[in-house]
Structures are given as structure tokens and as C-alpha cells.
């Protein structure tokens, strides 16, 4: 604050009479001093002791990562109680087991610790971990299906990348291959395709937000999952709008790139979900499901192609767009399979939701401009049909992958 005043002498001389250049600083320091005094008074004299009714402290424990390997179980827990927490004992399937906590001792509010148990878990079966704190409170953590947590080996990475390519990159590339066929499209077809893009993006933003909120609900309370998702999505939307509008509304390749980015972030979420399913032992990812994802995502390629039908980008641009939109699925599977804490997945998906909202707005603006007005655009048959086909196709193909 202060530096602004000193480095901007004109403002100082104009706004404030000489001699009182510290006055604004005082009005910053004073409220802070009152705050500091209040905190000191609360901690030093403890006037809240009258509220101490002998109730035990509120305790909260969130398991952020669950690693199963040949040594047993390793769990990353985050404490969220009103006071530092102590994990006194750990049960697995209603039996006490030795455990090692790292770092040991109390876990302060918001802090994490790793717990290792030499528990002989059984592949494919369910286990229940119960943490008992020093107050006797218990926290359950179910392991629905025990499978070894995938580790980072080149073999794992390659097979996961192949799966990611099938789910993300291949369908987008196939969609983009419709480009030559669509080049001769008339204005009505153009409107239909752009509206279809808006429709499919509309489906994706709902899907992404839903996934993001679901991850957020698994995160520790300290992260305030829902607020975090909404704020992150809004921030991501505003930043992308600010960047994209620097040279007016984006069109052509620029718009296609933004669409690819939004779709890419959504596919990151899809990858995270698949990877998390691997980590959670739900590896029943059949051929049918993979084909379902491929079909589901083909329209994404057509959507990316729509704004560039009237320009003629070089071939490498198509490859780059396909990678931008589909590649994140690979990264998502890699990250998801390592069972990272849910708040990071929620964060990534919230950024994706903001990005998708931005391209919905931009593609919508393009439609409105070409039609010469919002009401004209919304009233036209190709646009309405495109919106319906976009949402409908995504919804129906999603049936293939939702179980």
C-alpha cells in the first residue's frame, strides 16, 4: 500500500496535503492493531472458558490417499478438528493393527500424516479401516475393492497412455477427419454445426461440474469443496475470457484452440475418473466401455472443426488441436491411477468447467454475429436442431459409459 503512494508522487501531492502522507498508513495499521489486540486478549485471558462445557473437541479426519502394496496399507490422512488430533489406534476389519505414523505425534488442524499398517490385504475383497483417536472417537475408511495401487513403471505408463489415446485422442482425431467433408457446408449447415458444438459443450460443462463437485465432497472440510469448485471455475472463465478478448472475439483457429482447450480439460477429468477407478480396484474397464468413450468423444472433434471450416489451417494445426483436446485424457489416467488427493482432481475439473463456459460463450457469440442477433439465432431451425443434436448425442452416448 505504502509504496504505491511513494512511487506515485503526483497522486500524493494532489490527493493529500503535505505532512499527512502517513495518514492512510495509520488507517491501515490501526484496524490491524485492534485485530492483534483482540487475538492477544482472547488467547491471554481466555474469556471463552465460560463456554467450555466439558464437551470433547470436534474431530474430523479425511483420508486423502490410500496406497495398497506388498508392505500393506499406507494412508494419507488430513486432520480437520477444532484442536490437534491424536490417532491412538487403528483397526482393520474390526481388529487392532500395529501402525507407524509419519510424522508421529499430534496432527495439527489442516496437517497431514502418513499411516503405514503391515496389513495382509486380500486382492479383490473389501476392507474397512477404522481410526480411533485419543478421545475414543472413530473414523471409518472403507476400501471397497482391494487391489495393488498402480505404481509408476514404464509398462504401466505405456498401457495407460494407449487407453488414454483411445478414450481421448482417437475420437477427437476421427471427428476432425470429417473436416474435408464439412468444408463445403452452406450457412445453414455451419449454424447447425456451431449450435451442435454449443450443445455438446453444454453437456460437458454439466458433466464436468458434477464430477468436480463429487471429488470436492470427498476432500477435507478445510478446503470448502463446493466454494472452491465454483470460485475456481469462475476464475478460470474470467482469465480465459480476458486472454481471448485481447484482440477481439476469437474466431477461426483461435476459437478452435479455445474449444480444444476446454474439451481437453474435460477429458483430463474423464482420464482422472478412469485412473481413479483403476486405483480403487474397479478395473473392469471392458472393451465395450472404451468403445463407448470413443463414440462419445467423436462429436468433440467435429465441434473443434466447426469454427475452422472457412479457413484453411496447416495440417500440423489439426494434429496439435487433436493432442490439445485428447492428450489430457492420458495425463488424467496417469495422475488418477496414483490415487492423488481428491481436492486436486476437483481443482483441475473446476478449471475445465470455467474453460468450457468460455468457449460456449465464444461459439455462441459467433453464432449470434453470423445470424445478426440473438433472437434470430435462437429462432432459426438449424441452430435449434444443432443444440438438440449436440446435447442429445452426448447424452445418449454417455449411456454407454455410465454404469
Amino acid at each position, binding site marked *: 500500500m505504502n509504496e504505491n503512494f511513494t512511487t506515485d508522487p503526483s497522486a500524493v501531492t494532489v490527493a493529500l496535503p503535505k505532512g499527512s502522507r502517513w495518514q492512510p498508513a495509520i488507517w491501515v495499521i490501526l484496524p490491524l492493531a485492534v485485530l492483534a489486540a483482540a487475538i492477544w486478549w482472547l488467547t491471554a485471558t481466555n474469556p471463552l472458558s465460560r463456554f467450555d462445557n466439558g464437551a470433547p473437541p470436534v474431530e474430523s479426519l479425511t483420508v486423502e490417499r490410500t496406497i495398497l502394496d506388498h508392505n500393506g496399507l499406507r494412508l494419507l490422512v488430513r486432520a480437520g478438528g477444532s484442536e490437534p488430533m491424536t490417532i*491412538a489406534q487403528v483397526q482393520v476389519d474390526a481388529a*487392532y*493393527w500395529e*501402525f507407524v505414523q509419519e510424522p508421529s505425534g499430534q496432527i495439527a488442524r489442516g496437517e497431514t500424516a502418513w499411516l503405514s499398517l503391515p496389513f495382509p490385504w486380500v486382492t479383490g475383497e473389501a476392507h474397512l479401516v477404522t481410526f480411533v483417536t485419543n*478421545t475414543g472417537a472413530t473414523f471409518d475408511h472403507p476400501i471397497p475393492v482391494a487391489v495393488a495401487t498402480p505404481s509408476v513403471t514404464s509398462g504401466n505408463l505405456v498401457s495407460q497412455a494407449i487407453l488414454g489415446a483411445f478414450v481421448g485422442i482417437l475420437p477427437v482425431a476421427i471427428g476432425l477427419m470429417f473436416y474435408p467433408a464439412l468444408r463445403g457446408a452452406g450457412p445453414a449447415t455451419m449454424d447447425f454445426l456451431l449450435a451442435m458444438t454449443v450443445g455438446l459443450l453444454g453437456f460437458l460443462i454439466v458433466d464436468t461440474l458434477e464430477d468436480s463437485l463429487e471429488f470436492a465432497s470427498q476432500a477435507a472440510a478445510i478446503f470448502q469443496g463446493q466454494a472452491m469448485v465454483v470460485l475456481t471455475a469462475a476464475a478460470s472463465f474470467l482469465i480465459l475470457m480476458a486472454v481471448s478478448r485481447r484482440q477481439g472475439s476469437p474466431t477461426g483457429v483461435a476459437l478452435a484452440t479455445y474449444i480444444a482447450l476446454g474439451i481437453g480439460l474435460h477429458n483430463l477429468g474423464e482420464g482422472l475418473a478412469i485412473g481413479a477407478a483403476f486405483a480403487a480396484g474397479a478395473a473392469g474397464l471392458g472393451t465395450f466401455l472404451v468403445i463407448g468413450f470413443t463414440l462419445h468423444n467423436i462429436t468433440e472433434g467435429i465441434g473443434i472443426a466447426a469454427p475452422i471450416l472457412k479457413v484453411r489451417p496447416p495440417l500440423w494445426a489439426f494434429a496439435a488441436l487433436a493432442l490439445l483436446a485428447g492428450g489430457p485424457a492420458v495425463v488424467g489416467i496417469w495422475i488418477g491411477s496414483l490415487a492423488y488427493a481428491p481436492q486436486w482432481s476437483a481443482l483441475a475439473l473446476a478449471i475445465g468447467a470455467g474453460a468450457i463456459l468460455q468457449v460456449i460463450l465464444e461459439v455462441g457469440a459467433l453464432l449470434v454475429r453470423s445470424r445478426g442477433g440473438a433472437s434470430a439465432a435462437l429462432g432459426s431451425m438449424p441452430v435449434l436442431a444443432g443444440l438438440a443434436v449436440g446435447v442429445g448425442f452426448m447424452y445418449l452416448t454417455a449411456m454407454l459409459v455410465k454404469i
Partner: protein
Amino acid sequence: MRSWLPFDLRRRGFLGAGLLAAGGAAFTARTALGQTAHPAGHGGGTAQADANSVVPAHRVAHGAMITVGDVDDVRNGFDPTAMLTDWDTGTVSTLPDGRRLRTFEVTAEDKEIEIAPGVMFPAWTFNGRVPGPALRAIEGEQLRIVFRNDGSHPHSMHFHGIHAARMDGVPGAGLIGPGEEFIYEFEAKPFGCHLYHCHALPLARHIHKGMYGLFVVDPDPDRHPDLADVARSRLLGTPENARWQELAMVMNAFDTTFDGENEFYACNTIAHCYAEKPIRIEKHRPVRVYLVNITEFDPINSFHLHANFFDYYDQGTTLTPTLKTVDVIMQCQAQRGILEFTFADHEPGLYMFHAHQSEFTELGWMGMFDVVEAVS
């Protein structure tokens, strides 16, 4: 989020039974291993689990399936090992009519106790310990129990024995509020292994908070001429009794979350206490266990002795066994009895005992007898 599984993962109950069975098998396998691997001549007393030893003795038997850390017996004010043989015989005087009068003093108090390493429980106690003092008297004596309530709730002492209604320790008959005092008076009968507990309402809460204890009435040999030797061996203080190793054991459990399900099971309160500090048994001296079950919320509890069999006297009110040569008995709440067995023909080693409900065992109700050659 997409669900990748064709069934509801949270319905894991059907897997539980199989797991329990598998766990039990692994458990027994390890135990068998433990008995052979354990070195003979396990001379030194109780605590084998010192920090320097590579594998503590008890670890051989159950691997890593145990609570972590130690309970602070000093802070608790009672030591489960000392509790085994800590009989409260009160003070004895003679009444004008020549009968013996035995007086006990018992105070109810609130106390936070450590029931498993690091886990505190807000208990209600008799004389600051859970279980309460193991009262021991002789058949036919007049008993006077001076009971003071220093706790925060109304409490009583309800004795399982024969007495007048006004001495029953139920509401209206010896149930007293905080700060009050009551004297229970009755004759010690029938002989046997009995118990007392608080009978204030709600009963389940008052019992499971820790208000219970053993009440043993030894038989008077003069009243049982046919089995005078047996009666004398049960009578504390006689030479016949001195050769027995008598142990007071109360099977109890604690519901630390107050949801009607126990988190910790134990014999004498502290989960796994006799697993970590095995009970030392001189192999040539017979063993007599005064056992009572006061576990709340579960309908029954049980006692299983490894590698040996015992005679059982249900309620202890007979001088001949009610069950001969068994290795498991079960008790409903407040049921109790006397177990008699010997390791005289066994080789020294660690012999396990536990509830034969695997769940109770694995949640803390498990211990070991450390059978050693007699030391002079």
C-alpha cells in the same frame, strides 16, 4: 463420478464373514508357530516387550495384529497385572454375638481412564478403578459395605447374593445421590464367585461406564464336612489355598463412541494388557480363575484356554465342577464361574487365552499365560 462396478461396494457384509474366517485361520497358524518358536525357560516375570529386544515375546504369537503403545498404569492408578491378585478383604471385627463382621469401604467417583494405549474413556468407577475392588469374604460372615458417592450421578451397589430387599441397591433401596452415603448390610451367602454392579438407571450406561466388580464368597470348610479339603483350598489364607495361583478376571468392553457397539474388549479393562505382559504361571502350581462377564451391548462373552482343558464351576456355588474337562465356556452378562486347571504336565511356554468370539479377541480381549518352571 462414474461408477465402474456392477454392484454396490458398500454392501461389504457378505465379504466380512469370509474375511473373519481367513483371519482366524492365519491367527491360529501364527499361534502354533509361536508356541514352537518360543524359547524354553522364559524366566523373567512379566514384561518381555522392552524396547531393546528385536521381537517382543508376545509378537511371536500374533504378529502385527495388536494395539500400539503402552498404557500409563500410574496415571490410571491401577495395574492390570497387580489387579489379578489384588483381593479386597476389608477389615474384620467381632460382633457382640460372636459372629465375624467384615467391613468394606467403597467410593464411587468419576475418573478418566486409559483403556487402551492412548485412548481415554470417561469412566465411572468404584474406588478409582475399573473393574472395582475384588471384594472377598467368607461364607456366613456379616458384611457391612460403607458406600459413598463422590460421583456426578446417582449410584448404587447391587450385589448378586442373598439379602433383604432394602439392601438390594436398586432405586429406593440403597441408591444414593452425589455426596450421599449408604451402608449395605447382609450375610455373605451363598459361597461362590459373584459380582456387584451399580443398578442406577439407565442400567446399560451405568454398567458400561465401569461400575462393576468381583464379589467372591469363600466356602466355610466347617459347613461342608464332606468336601472340607476342597472348601479349604478355596478359602483365602489357608495353606491349602496358598499353593493355588488365583486370578481375578473381569471380561469387559468399552464403547468409546457411545453408539451401542464396543470399540475395545478386554479382560480387566486394558485391551491386550496380558498379551503384552503375559501372566506368569508357575507350572507346578494349579491355577484358579474367578471369571465374570460384565460386557455390555453383546449378549455373551466367552473364555477359551489354548492347549489345555479346565474344570468349570458355574457361579462357583458348588464344590464339584458343573462342567468337567472343557476348553471353552460362555457367559451371558453377569454370569460368572470358577475355572481350575494346571500346566503341571506342560512344557514351559506362552499359552494363549481369549474370548472365542474372534471379533472380541481381535479388538483386545486376548492374553497369554507365561508358564515357567517353579523358581525357588
